[in-house]
């Protein structure tokens, strides 16, 4: 027993020494971060022990934070830029009218145009707030079980009229029912945004297909299956590298710049799909774009109980 004591002491001393060194390094890095420098990493000692593990974990955390900061920075820049454009238009219209309008009619036209631009600013703000609100995740409490088929049909009915108006046909293949878990109104908004794109980027005479099905769960799966919803068009389509960026706020592909839009529709879709634990896939439809939304159906309490009984 007595010979164990000095060992314990030296072991304790070693650990304290090790922690002190790590804490010193962390302190140095965090001091740099406080000043906005995320590039300061904790150096690895290089002998692959716990100290390096700690350093690696902290460095990974720093990289994550740094990436998020970059996203915030880029997003703020994009927001500022995309809000400036309509504000600039409104401003020059008003100033122009103030300086050069000769008649009341000219003044009123300019003012009405400016109001339209400001409404556009409002709708951008609304969409951004909505994305932030969805990403915060609070609305998951409003999730219910519902049948996706009538929810889909309602939205399709709303947009089919618009499509037909532009000579576009929407072909629908839906099963009799589709069990779904989520926020009905919100999910409908996601579908509406995707449909809106499909119509907007389709030529007259084009066809859009809407297809949904239930995929049964894999063995040992964590859910009760997946709802697979595909909306595909034969429009202008997207290049692979644009698809990767399509859900970024304000992203609009080069070849569609002349078509109206704020580049926020798919950001909203992405946020809603993620809130539902699902995934959004964009693919080439040769020609056109195919958008697939896979949403897992979580275990119901009832099915859990029956599982136990089995």
């Amino acid at each position, binding site marked *: 027993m007595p010979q164990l004591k000095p060992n314990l002491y030296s072991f304790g001393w070693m650990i304290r020494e090790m922690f002190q060194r790590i804490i010193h390094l962390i302190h140095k890095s965090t001091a740099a971060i406080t000043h906005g420098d995320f590039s300061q990493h904790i150096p690895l000692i290089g002998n692959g022990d716990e100290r390096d593990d700690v350093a690696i974990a902290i460095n990974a955390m720093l990289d994550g934070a740094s990436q998020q900061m970059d996203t915030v920075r880029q997003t703020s820049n994009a927001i500022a830029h995309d809000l400036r454009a309509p504000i600039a238009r409104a401003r020059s219209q008003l100033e122009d009218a103030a300086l050069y309008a000769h008649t009341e009619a000219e003044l009123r036209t300019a003012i009405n145009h400016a*109001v339209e631009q400001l*409404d556009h600013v409002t709708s951008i703000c609304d969409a951004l707030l909505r994305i932030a609100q969805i990403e915060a995740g609070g609305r998951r409490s409003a999730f219910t079980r519902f049948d996706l088929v009538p929810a889909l049909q309602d939205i399709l009915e709303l947009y089919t*009229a*618009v499509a037909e108006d532009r000579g576009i046909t929407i072909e629908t293949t839906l099963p009799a029912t589709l069990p779904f878990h989520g926020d009905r109104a919100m999910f409908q908004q996601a579908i509406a945004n995707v449909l*809106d794109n499909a119509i907007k980027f389709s030529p007259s005479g084009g066809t859009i297909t809407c297809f949904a099905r239930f995929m049964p769960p894999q063995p040992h799966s964590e859910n009760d299956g997946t709802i697979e919803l595909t909306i595909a068009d034969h429009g202008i389509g997207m290049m692979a590298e644009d698809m990767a960026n399509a859900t970024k706020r304000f992203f609009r592909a080069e070849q569609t710049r002349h078509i109206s839009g704020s580049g926020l529709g798919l950001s909203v879709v992405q946020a809603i799909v993620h809130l539902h634990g699902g995934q959004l896939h964009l693919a080439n439809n040769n020609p056109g774009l195919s958008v697939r939304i896979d949403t897992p159906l979580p275990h119901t309490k009832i099915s859990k109980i029956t599982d136990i009984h089995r």
Partner: protein
Amino acid sequence: MRVLLVEDDQTVRNFVAKGLAEAGHLVEQAEDGKNGLSLATSEKFDVIILDRMLPGGVEGLHILKTLRNQNNTTPVLLLSALADVDEKVAGLKAGGDDYVTKPFSFSELQARLEALVRRNRNEAQPQTRLTIGDLEIDLLSRNVKRAGQKIELQPREFRLLEFLMRHAGQVVTRTMLLEGVWDYHFDPQTNVIDVHISRLRQKIDRPFHHPLVHTIRNAGYMLQE
């Protein structure tokens, strides 16, 4: 009608008061919650426009709750910069009858205000038939006739027409239609409503002499003889 306007932002208050006065309404104004509360509880109004965030410690929802606790059922339209869905739900739960988010257009506010007051008056007598000019719809059999001629409508077209008829002579905005007929509460990006109105017009106006569905510029639509 007599309107109480509780709003602290002077620009917004003047703008709304002016518009309402121009439309022939009597407007009483309060620029903070305390004044708003004492006016709302001591005098009678046809409708109250209530900003949610007010200075002076008395918040809009507090005024609303106080009124409802006193069994005062005056229709209340909430005005707020809080566009959040949950905020809307909170406002309606507290006893609000409608909710308009800032910034808003005056035509939207006015249309909703008039719909509120009208709804409040009509609630007593349930109707089974609605008519305007030579157009009549039967809410039970879902039959639609114009000048004695039967018109076939899809279920949604019928609901759209019913909504317009219930608001005959009033401006109905696109947002009101989207909420009232489709129960959607988001901005549909494209003007989906215009397309549906134009389809309805094909059926109820096109074959006849004079149109009943009118487009009101910068505002929406109105069904009128």
